């Protein structure tokens, strides 16, 4: 069977070079606007930088995928169409899309452009994937982080579409692309603006020795002195239900599915994806390097050796998430 393909994030040209140099098989990135789901200040690529990035990656045997995975704004689809056109003319190896209308546009305009289905489309079952395959010719689907490994195995076998799963990084406990928690608190959403719990609406307030994080008008967490902190995303916040304060949705924890490599291989998964286009190049280099080593060793031995990545992860704890049933 073919090797796993290692798909790595890049938010800046420097991070792209770090990912390529650390052994990525493919890098995914986005243009510097609302057309991609990591539309953070100071991040992402101008058209020129994208062209340079593609040249750098291709020169080293690495592919480049362009994520255009927000939902085009009603009445002004121009930027999204333009992003698809540019990706095609720059020679991107694939575009990662979520919106039906945009998939339709890309399939009609650029029949030779490879289409990957973004996790933001939340295609969580074989019927959904079949539709994208048959109607748009989607070649690969990035699966939502809500499926178990057996779910993934059945879906992969039944649809024959390449499956790509997240193995490391931030973990959405909710079905991606179907979550308005961020916009409920801030007015800005992953689907529309490409941001979740945007920094512009985050405030950290020291209250004595504790650190309070606020999102919009709401307190979403409080960290005691010395307690590991997490991203200020709403779903990783601490809330009170039934009289008890707890991480109701998800702990500040990071996905790490490396121990599941044998199971994911057996499930027929084609590509493993690392989350974190918003992370620094040091993180990219460390995580991509560790995964490259682990995958090479897995190819030789069939065993998954778990590298120590505790220093870079959220809450300094990791989880195999929904891939194992106990998570539910």
């Amino acid at each position, binding site marked *: 069977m073919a090797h796993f393909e290692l798909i790595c994030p890049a938010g*800046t040209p*420097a991070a792209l070079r*770090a990912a390529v140099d650390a052994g990525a098989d493919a890098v995914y990135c986005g243009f510097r606007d609302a057309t991609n789901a990591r539309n953070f*200040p*100071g991040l992402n690529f101008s058209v020129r930088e994208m062209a340079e990035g593609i040249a750098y990656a291709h020169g080293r045997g690495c592919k480049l995928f362009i994520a255009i995975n927000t939902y085009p704004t009603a009445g002004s689809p121009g930027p999204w169409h333009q992003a698809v056109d540019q990706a095609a003319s720059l020679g991107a190896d694939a575009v990662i899309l979520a919106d039906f209308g945009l998939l339709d546009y890309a399939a009609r305009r650029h029949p030779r452009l490879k289409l990957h289905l973004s996790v933001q489309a939340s295609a969580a079952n074989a019927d959904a994937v079949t539709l994208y395959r048959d109607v748009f010719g989607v070649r690969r689907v990035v699966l939502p982080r809500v499926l178990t490994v057996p779910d993934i195995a059945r879906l992969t076998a039944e649809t024959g579409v390449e499956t790509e799963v997240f193995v490391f990084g931030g973990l959405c406990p909710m079905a991606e692309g179907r979550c308005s928690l961020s916009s409920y608190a801030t007015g800005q959403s992953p689907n529309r603006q490409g941001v979740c719990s945007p920094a*512009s609406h985050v405030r950290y307030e020291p209250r004595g020795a504790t650190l309070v994080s606020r999102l919009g008008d709401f307190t979403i967490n409080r960290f005691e002195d*010395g307690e590991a902190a997490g*991203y200020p995303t709403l779903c990783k916040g601490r809330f009170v239900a039934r009289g008890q304060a707890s991480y109701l949705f998800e702990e500040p924890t990071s996905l790490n599915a490396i121990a599941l490599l044998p199971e994911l291989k057996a499930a027929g998964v084609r590509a493993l994806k690392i989350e974190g286009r918003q992370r*620094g190049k040091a993180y990219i*280099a460390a995580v991509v390097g560790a995964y490259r080593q682990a995958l090479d060793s897995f190819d030789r031995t069939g065993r998954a050796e778990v590298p120590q990545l505790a220093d870079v992860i959220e809450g300094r704890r990791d989880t195999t998430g929904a891939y194992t049933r106990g998570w539910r």
Partner: protein
Amino acid sequence: MSTHSHDEAAGTSRIGRPLETTVAALALRLARAVGPRLGNPVLDRLSQVFARRHPRAAEALAELPASTVLVDPVDLPSGLLLRLGPGGLRLRLCDAVDASADAVVRGRFGALLDLAAGRIDGDALFFRRDLTIAGDTALVVALRNALDGEDIDLLIEIDAAAGPIGRFGPEARRHAARLAETLGGLRSALLRPEARRLDALERRVARVESREP
């Protein structure tokens, strides 16, 4: 694997990093000791060097709304105030306790330098609580992303900015020879990192500090 491989990833030697931290801290102390009339031109030079060497980041920072970020190294006596927005990056020394800024980044000086040079991931520092952020979080994220997109080598940046004192204009030149000597020392320390030289340099900076600016 963490710290070690971060260093390797960014291509900085294990010897280079403490040296860099020491030299940068000395530079900051020196700039403070000599006062704004002499310190500001050096900091302006540093911004110019940065803009020349890193146009992508400079442009990103210039596109931000006019704003200030206070970088507060908790283990050093003074902070650095970054002015962002139209006109580009401008640096000023300030008293971290009194300064008001739109956003504040606080941490140990070594960690802040690691962050500036992209050797360590800011999120990771934050998760470990080694970094605190107050005020306009988006500003800090924008600054972090802009810097992280560059391959920054602080030693080279400081070296380029510290240059021969003759370039600083008449007012600066009027200052004591001791200062010129100290700046020269900084530069040589960059070129030939030896503990002895650093100690001597440290003593020299201390002498400048003890003098009225």
